[in-house]
C-alpha cells in the first residue's frame, strides 16, 4: 500500500468543503428507531455520496454528541466501521453539551491547521428518543453480582433484600438539569428572562420570526442542498417537521408557561427535543483544490468560554462572540451575517441585549464601547433551533453548513456563530468566505 504523504507540522488553512444533515424531526416521532449512530451514519453516507470523495483520502472522523450511546460512545469510529470506510479512518467523539457539533468541527479544523490531517469529516448527532433510562446507583450496585460473574441463589435473595423500597430502584426520568445546581434548563432561561427583562411578547415575537424565516427557507429550497432525505420505518422523511410557517404571535401567546406559574418561557419560545444529525467535510485548502473541490468557507477564529452556571447559565455567547471577534481582529459591524443557536428566545434576546450594552462591555469585556446591536435583517436569517429543532450534538454542524453555503453563494464576506451550552459554556466562531 502506498504510504500517504504526511503534512505533519505544516501550517495549512482549513476549509469547509460541504455539509449535509438529516431532516430535524421531533423526538419520539419519525426517527424513533434510529439511534444517534444510525443518524450519524446517514449524514456521513450522504456527505460521501454527494462529494464522490475517494474513501482512502479520509484521515479521520470527529463527532459530537450529548446523549452518547453508553455501549458504544465513540460514535465517530462506529460510523467509519458501519460505512465500511478503510480501517485507517480513525475516529474520536467529543462532548461539549450543545456546542458539541461546533466543537467537533473546530477540532477537525485545528487538526488540519497543524498538519495532523488533510481530510476530516466532522459533525454531530443526537437522538433524544433513544436516551437511555439510567438505573439509580443503588440498583446498579445491587444487580452487579448477577450481571457480572456467576451468581449463587443466595445472591439473588441478597439482591431482592437490597431492592426495597421499590421507589429507590426505579429508573430516573432523564431531564436536562444542571448537575451542580439541579436547575432545569428552562428554569435557567426563565430566570434570565426575568433578570434581563425579556418580555413574553418579545420572546414570542422572536419565535414567530424564527418559524416564518425557517418556513420561507424551506419553501424556497434554500436547504435542499444541505438536507438529505432519510428512509425511516414509517417511510421517507424529506424535510424538517418542527417548523410552523403558519404560527402567529397570537397562537404563541396562548401557550402556557412551562417552568414557572407567572413565567414567560413556553413550548413555543423554547427549542424542542429533536432527533437528527449533521456532517461537515473539512480539508486543507491545498488538498481541496487538488481534489477539485471549491471550498465554501474557512474559519478565521473561534472561542470557547465558561460562566458560572449558577448565575446566568446561557449567557456564554455574549462573552464568546466578542472573544472570537477579537481573535479574528474584527468587529461585529464587519460581520455580513450572524447566526446564533436558539435554545430559548429568552436566551438569544438576553445575549443580544448584553452585546448591545455599554455597561456589559465595560465591566465584563474590558471594552469601552458595546460590541454592538445585531441588525435583525442579518440575524438568524433562516430561523434557528426554535423552528428547525435542536438535536444537541448536530446543531453546531448545521450552523456551520448553512453559514458556509451562505458565504459561498451570496458573496457575503463573514459570518459570526454563537452557541450557548449546558454547564455555563459558550462557543463562537468567525467564518470567512474563500475565493
Amino acid at each position, binding site marked *: 500500500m502506498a504510504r500517504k504523504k504526511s503534512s505533519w507540522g505544516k501550517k495549512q488553512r482549513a476549509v469547509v468543503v460541504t455539509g449535509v444533515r438529516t431532516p430535524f424531526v421531533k423526538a419520539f416521532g419519525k426517527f424513533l428507531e434510529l439511534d444517534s449512530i444510525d443518524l450519524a451514519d446517514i449524514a456521513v453516507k450522504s456527505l460521501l455520496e454527494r462529494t464522490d470523495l475517494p474513501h482512502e483520502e479520509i484521515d479521520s472522523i470527529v463527532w459530537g454528541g450529548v446523549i452518547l450511546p453508553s455501549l458504544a460512545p465513540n460514535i465517530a469510529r462506529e460510523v467509519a466501521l458501519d460505512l465500511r470506510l478503510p480501517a485507517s479512518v480513525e475516529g474520536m467523539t467529543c462532548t461539549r453539551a450543545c456546542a458539541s457539533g461546533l466543537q467537533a468541527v473546530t477540532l477537525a479544523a485545528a487538526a488540519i491547521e497543524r498538519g495532523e490531517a488533510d481530510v476530516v469529516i466532522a459533525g454531530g448527532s443526537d437522538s433524544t428518543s433513544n436516551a437511555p433510562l439510567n438505573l439509580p446507583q443503588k440498583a446498579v450496585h445491587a444487580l452487579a453480582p448477577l450481571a457480572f460473574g456467576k451468581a449463587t441463589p443466595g445472591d439473588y435473595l441478597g439482591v431482592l433484600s437490597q431492592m426495597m423500597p421499590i421507589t429507590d430502584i426505579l429508573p430516573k426520568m432523564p431531564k436536562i438539569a444542571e448537575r451542580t445546581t439541579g436547575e432545569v434548563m428552562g428554569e435557567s432561561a426563565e430566570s434570565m428572562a426575568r*433578570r434581563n427583562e425579556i418580555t413574553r411578547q418579545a420572546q414570542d415575537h422572536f419565535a414567530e420570526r424564527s418559524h416564518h424565516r425557517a418556513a420561507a427557507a424551506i419553501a424556497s429550497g434554500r436547504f435542499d442542498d444541505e438536507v438529505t432525505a432519510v428512509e425511516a420505518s414509517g417511510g421517507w422523511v424529506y424535510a424538517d417537521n418542527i417548523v410552523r410557517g403558519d404560527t402567529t404571535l397570537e397562537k404563541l401567546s396562548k401557550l402556557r408557561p412551562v417552568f414557572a406559574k407567572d413565567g414567560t418561557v413556553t413550548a413555543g419560545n423554547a427549542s424542542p427535543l429533536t432527533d437528527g444529525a449533521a456532517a461537515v467535510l473539512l480539508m486543507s485548502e491545498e488538498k481541496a483544490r487538488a481534489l477539485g473541490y471549491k471550498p465554501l468557507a474557512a474559519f478565521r477564529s473561534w472561542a470557547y468560554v465558561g460562566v458560572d452556571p449558577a448565575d446566568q447559565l446561557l*449567557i456564554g455567547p455574549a462573552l464568546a462572540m466578542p472573544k472570537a471577534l477579537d481573535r479574528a481582529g474584527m468587529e461585529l459591524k464587519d460581520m455580513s451575517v450572524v447566526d446564533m443557536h436558539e435554545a430559548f428566545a429568552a436566551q438569544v434576546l438576553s445575549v443580544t*441585549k448584553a452585546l448591545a450594552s455599554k*455597561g*456589559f462591555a*465595560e*465591566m465584563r469585556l474590558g471594552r469601552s464601547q458595546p460590541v454592538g446591536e445585531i441588525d435583525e435583517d442579518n440575524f438568524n436569517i433562516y430561523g434557528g433551533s426554535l423552528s428547525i429543532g435542536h438535536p444537541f450534538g448536530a446543531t453546531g454542524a448545521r450552523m456551520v453548513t448553512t453559514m458556509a453555503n451562505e458565504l459561498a453563494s451570496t458573496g457575503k464576506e463573514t459570518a459570526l456563530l454563537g452557541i450557548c451550552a449546558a454547564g455555563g459554556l459558550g462557543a463562537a466562531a468567525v467564518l470567512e468566505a474563500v475565493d
Partner: protein
Amino acid sequence: MSDLLLENQNARKLIKTLGLPIPVPEKLARAKGPYEERPLDDKKVLVCGTGGLQTVLAQILTKAGANPWVVGDTDAVLEPFIGPGEAWARTPHWVQTGDAPEGERIDAIVFDGTGLESPDDLRQVYDFMHPWIRRLNRSGRVVVIGRPAADAKKPARAAARAGLEGFTRSLAKEIGANGTVANSVFVEEGAESRLGPVLRFLLSPRSAFISCQPFHVSKLAKGDEAPDTHVLGGKVALVTGAARGIGEATAELLAAEGAHVVCLDRPADDAPCSKVAQRIGGSVLLVDITDEDAPARIANELKERFGGVDVVVHNAGVTRDKTLGRMKPDAWDMAVDVNLGAVIRITDRLLEDEVLRPGGRIVCLSSVSGIAGNRGQTNYSASKAGIVGFVEALAPRVAKKGITVNAIAPGFIETRLTSAMPVAIREVARRMSAVGQGGKPEDVGQAITFLATPGAVGVTGATVRVCGGALIGA
C-alpha cells in the same frame, strides 16, 4: 450547653404559642463554604442616601449578585445603576422616597450618607429608612456609610457625620431580634475603591454576629486590587492557639480560602493541634509563646520552612480571674504576658526579621469584657485593652509596607470557656446582645479571616467587636 431558645424547636414554639414575655432570638443565617463570586446572590438591597457613592455602590452590589432597589425623588437615581445592571443582569428598580410599596420586603439597606453637611441632613436617614425598616427579612443587613468625622473641616459637618454612628448603634438594637445586624462604615475621601470587600463582607452572612460596629476605611496601608474568591490562595498563615475554639475555627476558614495554615499551640496540646493541622492540610508548630526564645524560634521556622508568613493571628490567650485584692502576682504575670507581652515580642521579631511579608496581615485578639471592664479580670482587661493600643500604634508604622494590624474583640461566644459559666450568668450574657444570643467560634473566625484578606486593606488600626451588638462595652 446549647442555647435552648435557639436550638429547641419545641421550646421556641411553646414560648411563642403561650405568648410568654420571653424574647425568642432569631437563628442567624451563616455562610457555608469559602468566599463566593456573588455573596449577595439574588438579595434585594435597598440603596438610599444622597452622597456621591452611587456609581461605586452600583458596581459593588450588582457584581456581588444583588438586585438594587434605589430610593430617590425621581427615577434619575437609577442612572448609575443602568450600566452595571446590564453587565450583571441586575436590573435596578426605583422607589419613591418615603414610599414602600405594599408587600415588598428587602434583605438589606445600604445608606450613603457621605453627603451629610449639617445636623439637619441627618433627617435623611429617617426619611429613607423609616418606611422600610420593618420590611427587612430575617438575618437582614443595614450598612450606613459616611465620611470620618475627624476629617470634617466644619464642626457642624463633623457632628452630622458622627451622628450616623449613634443612629446605627441604636437601630441595631431595634432590629436585632429579627437576626438583623447594622453597622456603619466611614470611608476616607479617595478610599472608595476599597469599599467593595468591606461591603461584600458586611452584607453577607459572614458578618452574622457583628453589629453596632463602626468600620473605618482608609488609604493608609498600601495595596493593590484584591481577589473576590480564593482570597488567600498562595498565602501562609500563622494561627496561635489553633488547637481548639476560635483558633481552630479560624484555621479552618483560612485554609478554606487557600492559605497554608501553620497551627501553633503549646507542646502539651500536640494531639488536638496536629488533628486540626491534618484536617486542613496545614502544618504544626509546637511552641510555648511565653518562652524566651519563642519569637526567634517562630520567626526562624516560618522563614526556613515557608520563606515567610503573610497572615499572623494572635489568638492564644488565657484568663487568670481573681479580684485584685486576692490575685497572686503570677496570675497577673501569666495573663498579661500570654495575652499581650508575647504578642508584642513575636510581632516585633517577625517585623524586624522581615519574616512578615509586604502586604501582610496581623490580627490580634482583644475582648469585649476586656474593654468594657469585668469584675475579677483586672489582669485580663489590662492585657486585652493593651492590644487595642498596640494595634492602633503599630498600624501607621507598617502601613507603607502594605501591612495592616487589627484586633478582634469577641463578645459572648459559645466555647468551652463560656459553657463552664454558671447558668444564670450565662443566660444573661447571651441575651444582652442586640441579636439576643451568643456567637459561635466561626463568627469570630469569619471576622478574623476577613481582616486577613487582601481586600481588607482599607481597615487597619481598628478593634472590631464580634459581639452581636452587646449592651456593654460601647
